[in-house]
């Protein structure tokens, strides 16, 4: 594959190869490609149009596709998530943007009691092919009501699919897979990763299959299992431990929370025999709780140490910078957990 940069390459016009772009640009490219490919795909949410997107993911799309396909909504999450459900039942392909996952809670009834139920509750007679995109994450002193990671709540729910890309390439690939999927899919984006850069395939048919984890870094001493921004942190920690202590840490990026690729996790643990699970959410009843349960069953004979977990301190996140930092699953805490598990 030939590499071009986003500055010099014509990203939209290219059909093959790859380009370096931000996670935000990769999401935008996925939206553009899918909207161009399929008339049924439309975007709606707060500030997605005239404002160019709260986090600028949809910048330029209103101009390109018009107000019918890039639809600004009132601040009315229950209303417009439900409108996505209804439109999807009629065969449209709505992509609903929720400004942050914190605000998705006011639409919880439409997601969990409606979208998730349609396939099973009506005996497979009707489907709900919709996408909800929303960022989780903390770290900018946004405080208790705006710093949460609730993806575990949704991954808990049969009837939903939940993916959480950690790289620009997977941001494009998983969003495209979600849009093409015939079920309701939550795409968990992440505030700090929006600006991260990476190589992204330009092939408009490139998708990242839902349900496959990725070994983001190979290693033999210990496995870190993570998703979303925790994967970015895990890769930094792995590199640092390599340079400072010569340790080979493997990083398994889950990418998909429901369905969950237990097989890739188990294969890694069978190789390294030690594992630390990391998430940005609270660990109690969290994603790492699920992963730990799966590992103890699949890898009981392989483990040389108890499964360790690192997550958000279990408090409503405080404002003061030092308190916020102390609460987060930062790289120091992850590194300490790795070393303790190796001890």
């Amino acid at each position, binding site marked *: 594959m030939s590499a071009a940069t986003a500055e010099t390459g014509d990203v939209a016009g290219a059909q093959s190869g790859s380009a370096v772009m931000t996670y935000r640009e990769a999401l935008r490219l996925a939206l553009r490609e899918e909207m161009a490919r399929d008339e049924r795909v439309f975007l709606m949410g707060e500030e997605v149009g005239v404002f160019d997107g709260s986090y600028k993911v949809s910048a330029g799309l209103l101009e390109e596709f018009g107000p019918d396909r890039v639809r600004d909504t009132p601040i009315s999450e229950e209303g417009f998530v439900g*409108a996505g459900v*209804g439109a999807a039942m*009629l*065969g449209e392909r709505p992509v609903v943007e929720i400004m942050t996952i914190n605000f998705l809670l006011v639409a919880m009834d439409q997601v969990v009691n*409606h979208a998730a139920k349609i396939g099973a509750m*009506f005996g497979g007679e009707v489907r709900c092919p919709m996408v909800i995109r929303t960022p989780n994450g903390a770290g900018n002193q946004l405080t208790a009501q705006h710093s949460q990671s609730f993806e575990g709540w949704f991954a808990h729910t049969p009837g939903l699919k939940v993916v959480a890309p950690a790289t620009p390439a997977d941001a494009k690939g998983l969003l495209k897979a979600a849009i093409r999927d015939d079920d309701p899919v939550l795409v968990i984006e992440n505030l700090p990763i929006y600006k991260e850069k990476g190589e992204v395939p330009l092939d408009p048919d490139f998708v990242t299959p839902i349900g*496959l984890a990725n070994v983001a870094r190979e290693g033999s001493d210990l496995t870190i299992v993570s998703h979303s921004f925790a994967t970015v942190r895990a890769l930094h920690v792995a590199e640092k431990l390599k340079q400072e202590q010569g340790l080979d840490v493997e990083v398994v990026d889950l990418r998909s929370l429901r369905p969950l690729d237990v097989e890739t996790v188990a294969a890694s643990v069978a190789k390294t025999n030690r594992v630390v699970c990391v998430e940005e959410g609270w660990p109690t009843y969290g994603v790492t709780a699920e992963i730990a349960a799966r590992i103890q069953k699949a890898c009981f004979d392989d483990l040389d140490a108890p499964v360790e977990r690192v997550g958000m301190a279990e408090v409503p996140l405080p404002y003061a910078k030092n308190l916020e930092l102390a609460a987060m699953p930062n790289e120091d805490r992850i590194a300490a957990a790795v070393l303790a598990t190796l001890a």
Partner: protein
Amino acid sequence: MAIEIDTLRDLYEQMVLIRVFETESERQYKAARIGGYCHLSSGQEAATVGVVHALEADDLLVTGYRCHGFALARGVDPDAVMAELFGRRDGCSHGRGGSMHLLDVSRGFYGGWGIVAGQLPVATGLALGLVRQGKPQAVLCELGDGAINMGAWHESLNLAAVWDLPVVFMVVNNGFGMGTAVDRASAIEELYKRADSYGIRGERIDGDDIEASYGAAAELLAEARDQRRPSVLEVMTYRYRGHSVADAGLAYRTKDDVARHMEHDPLLRVRALLRDAGISETELDEVDARADARVAGAVAAADASPLPDVDGLAAGMYAAGSDVQFERMMPGSPFGEEELVFAGGLGT
């Protein structure tokens, strides 16, 4: 709006069918052949049949959980409705939905929904879908008087008005949200006036008058189709039975209250109209007998329908092709959990 006599006779037959169906459902529930919640609509037949009659073939219908009558009025096969209540394979939702979650896409009926007011955003989205697809139809969204105090009511009416969506919100005001009288739940008792807040039309009619129900619905649905304007239609009616079969319905009203409403029974009112137009008692009795036979046939068909296949416990939950995505957590693999019951396949 006057209804032509042959049509009125057909509508009377639908009303009788619903009454007999509901009465039989209660009997079957008490015989433990129907389970779960079972919300009956006896007394509300004129509102149901009159308004649904105003739907064109390609219009869409969405309702709350008191939906047996709406399904039957919309032409869903009574066999499939009764089989659904029985939890059988030939039920319109294949035994997965039960009383509250009837659905028949071939009749434009997009569901009975069980969370109060949850169907309103969905109906708004169906209307958005119609507009996006360039179709001239409209959506009728039924809800109870209790639903108008939910946030979803406000959000849906506002969105429908802001986006000019073709949806008529039919508020069935039967006096009580479960056991709470309307005047104890809503700051204003004339519920249709809430439409003013959204700059849309609101009407209140006597829902027990089938011609009024049909006329108002026909007018508002035509406005929705032709002018893309949403509206509120409040139909005043009364339910004879409790909130559900499990509720005797007497904690919050008296037997005399119910008896007083029964004196003006909507079936008797239509019957009088038909008699005045020259239809004989004998002919009307024949209509009643046909409804009895139809419901008896539905019970027999439901009884004969097999139970859903336990191996297909998860069927329909995810779209066909999802099995591949779930392969790495499937039961049977070294990594599967028993609760993931995908053995019979996820797709339909």
